[in-house]
């Protein structure tokens, strides 16, 4: 099998919710070991797109290609098995339970008869937490007493633990303090160092900019812009976003570097 250039690719993805068309033919690609900043206004369809990749929603039309395999739809379990982990906007944590239990949630290490290998999971959790910079917290700590940034950290640690190839972060920095945002950005850089790919969704381009290699701009269900980081400053990106919000188009001076021709 040839080395796949893209970890994930969508072909003319359409998603309707009743009368609402959330995605209108989206061709979206993520390369291996690339961090894609997925940006766009409220309701642009960002969450819908990544939920399709994670098997939460089935697309109305179109296809998903993952590591060269084509799918009409995925299930959460299938996406998992293919190495895609979604760190949701809504938290996928069992808050009343410990950090180590949350890290292994749904993928417990078990011995014969399905009994949990508790000490092994605790140790691995501790090691991973340390690697990602959460070492101050013992793995027996209940998740509900962690702050938002740490909770994101636990979810990202989970993704690492599952050896995910593509970690999708939907608004991981929302409602976080400045210091915590920095911490989350560190987690994302850690993913990149480990050769993983990532999709990072945020309203705040100053959060996305430092970590992303490429920016994809979604507007009302369509991809209207795709830019490489090396071609843009954060202010350029901000300018483009504002212009799209006002006029629905990428300003003419940036069309040259837009990888989407329109």
């Amino acid at each position: 099998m040839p080395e796949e250039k893209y970890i994930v690719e969508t072909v003319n993805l359409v998603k309707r919710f009743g009368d609402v068309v959330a995605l209108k033919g989206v061709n979206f690609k993520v390369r291996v070991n690339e961090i894609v900043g997925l940006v766009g206004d409220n309701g642009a369809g960002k969450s819908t797109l990544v939920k399709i990749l994670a098997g939460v929603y089935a697309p109305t039309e179109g296809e998903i290609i993952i590591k060269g395999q084509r799918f009409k739809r995925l299930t959460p379990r299938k996406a998992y098995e293919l190495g895609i982990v979604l760190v949701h906007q809504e938290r996928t944590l069992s808050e009343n339970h410990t950090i180590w239990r949350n890290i292994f949630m749904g993928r417990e290490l078990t011995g014969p008869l399905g009994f949990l290998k508790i000490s092994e999971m605790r140790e691995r959790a501790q090691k991973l937490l340390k690697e990602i910079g959460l070492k101050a917290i013992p793995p027996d700590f209940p998740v509900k007493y962690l702050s938002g940034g740490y909770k994101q950290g636990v979810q990202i640690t989970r993704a690492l633990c599952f050896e995910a190839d593509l970690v999708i972060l939907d608004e991981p920095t929302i409602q976080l303090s400045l210091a915590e945002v920095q911490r989350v950005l560190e987690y994302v850089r850690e993913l990149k160092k480990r050769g993983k790919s990532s999709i990072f969704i945020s309203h705040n381009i100053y959060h996305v900019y430092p970590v992303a290699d490429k920016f994809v701009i979604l507007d009302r269900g369509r991809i209207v812009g795709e830019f490489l980081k090396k071609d843009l400053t954060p202010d350029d990106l901000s300018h483009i976003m504002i212009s799209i919000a006002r006029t629905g188009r990428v300003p003419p001076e940036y069309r040259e570097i837009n990888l989407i021709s329109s």
Partner: protein
Amino acid sequence: MGKRSVLPKQLKTPYFTGITAKYKLQIAILAIFLMLWLIFFAINPSGFSNPYTYTAMFSVAPFTIIPALSLTYVIILGEIDLSFPSVMALGALVLTLTWKTFGPTPLGLLLALSAGLLAGLLNGILITKFQIPSLIATIGTMFLWRGFILVVTQGYGIPLGEYRGLPIYEMLVGRIGIIPVQIIWTVIIALVLWVILNFHKFGAYVYYTGDNRIAAKMLGINTDKVIISVYMIHGAIAAFAGVLATLEMATFWPALGEIYLMKSIASVIVGGTPVTGGIGTIFGTFIGGLILELIETGILAVGVTGFWIRLVHGLVIIIALIAQVLIRRSEMRRMRVVE
């Protein structure tokens, strides 16, 4: 107070080294039990130093506690079951009829447990596949099975005294010395359910399904399967409890189980499992059930009328609930968010 320190305060406190802090709630429940026992002992020392008082208590306590143990799983799921008293009677009826037809063999027990499994399966399917709230669904099946039993028996009891003394009978509700065998079954069931809940993948899924069902689903846990399985286990265990109760009384009564509905639910609640789901313990339920039984035994032994039982039950339930709220609040205060 300024900014929070870098190393969170609560990590320096011995929260995780101190067993007492981690199991505070369970210790509190145990303390309530011991306190009640001391009170009763002080009022009636001769009654409570007589081993037969405990024989009497442990011969009937299982019928409340056994269904409460598996009900704990249901409540951890964030669901409820009102049909288990009817399922107790259903299991007992199946055993009774099988024994009357084919003789007193393990087949009767096997069929009784199967009936419990099927009743649980029906509850589970109504709740997951038809998305009927468990409160409503199990009201339906509660009437269904009770009605079925009344139609079949025409409301008459069926005596089973002739089987007394047979090995199978003695294995289920006999006495080992002065120890009723059914309390040993209770302890075995409690241990198995405790081990599964704490050390098995299935137990973990029960907790996650109750704590955050959407998250559990998104992480690939088949929550419907978990819910159906829990109701089936609960059904089988309720049927078993019904068999024990019937054999202990040596008569099948069509109304069997009805008195255990509220008592079993109360055992779970007193035991510290909140109806909101996600958390809860088998140990708590076990002690919770013992508390309610102790009150019954104690009030009768003290010599006042049985009418006091309900009143004291009510008081103790309320006290236990308040204690739980206070313990959870103090934990919340101490465990402020780590940043």
